[in-house]
């Protein structure tokens, strides 16, 4: 009985969150992050495939994380536009392979709402990025750039890496029931 109650309260607690889950990007490093934010279907095939489009690459300045309220937080494709410090005005949506199937969709396009096909069938999965010295387009040292992606995803990249000088990037998820929070962290 206790277990049932616990499950019920958890279920009630979970309502109201988009199925794709929240993305939180913490940049703890001393370099600016400049990258694509990509989500895709992670079961079976890679589509739908959704990528940042306007801006194509998001700049999250050095030392921007939950601790100072400057983390990039995307609750879902739509609501991020009004709630995030890094609003994404347009997403590039591919429903199948081939460039003809790619369409730009504004954040408030009805199909981008949580609980619908796109949201329910995709997960935050990848970032392709470079790291710059603050406020510049000068590359951070030691090849601190590349991509991190979820395990066994459509995109061929590791989930984490560390540079010789000790900087690093990783993507991981924390899953509880139907709630998944995806973290991208730069150190």
């Amino acid at each position, binding site marked *: 009985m206790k277990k049932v109650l616990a499950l019920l309260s958890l279920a009630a607690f979970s309502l109201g969150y988009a199925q794709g889950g929240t993305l939180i990007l*913490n940049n703890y490093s001393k370099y600016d992050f400049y990258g694509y934010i990509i989500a895709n279907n992670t079961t079976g095939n890679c589509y739908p495939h959704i990528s940042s489009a306007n801006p194509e690459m998001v700049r999250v300045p050095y030392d921007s994380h939950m*601790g100072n*309220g400057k983390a990039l937080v995307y609750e879902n494709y739509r609501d991020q536009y009004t709630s995030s410090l890094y609003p994404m005005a347009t997403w590039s949506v591919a429903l199948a392979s081939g460039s003809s199937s790619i369409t730009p969709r504004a954040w408030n396009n009805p199909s981008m709402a949580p609980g619908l096909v796109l949201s329910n069938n995709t997960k935050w999965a990848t970032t392709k990025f470079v790291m710059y010295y603050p406020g510049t387009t000068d590359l951070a040292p030691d090849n601190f750039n590349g991509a991190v992606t979820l395990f066994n995803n459509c995109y061929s990249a590791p989930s984490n890496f560390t540079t010789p000088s*000790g900087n690093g990037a*990783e*993507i991981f*998820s924390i899953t*509880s029931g139907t709630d998944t*929070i995806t973290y991208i*962290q730069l150190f």
Partner: protein
Amino acid sequence: MAAFAILTLISCNNEGNAVNTVESMKTPQMENFDKAFKSLGDPQNRPTEEEKKRNTSELSDRRKALLVPASKELILSSGVTEAELMRKTGGDMSQIIVWATQIYMKKSDEIRKNIKSEK
């Protein structure tokens, strides 16, 4: 005219100083929660070779454990009792961390709204 402009500038500056920032309004529990996530980047807390070979992107239990104390603190600071915390999560690390993250986001949203309404 110039004097007026300068006065306006000064008054704007003063307002800027009085306005709180998200950083200054954070609670110690929120700060520790962020520190725990930052600590995942410490050399000894990075993924081990074994963890890298796992067939999943779920954070490993070893690294989740690093986030649990600060997560619990944050949940308790929101008015939840220890008994309630245990009853709802059964001590499950993922549940505790996800719950804490949701509280964190709610709190920072509230702080941001307060700052906006002050302006």
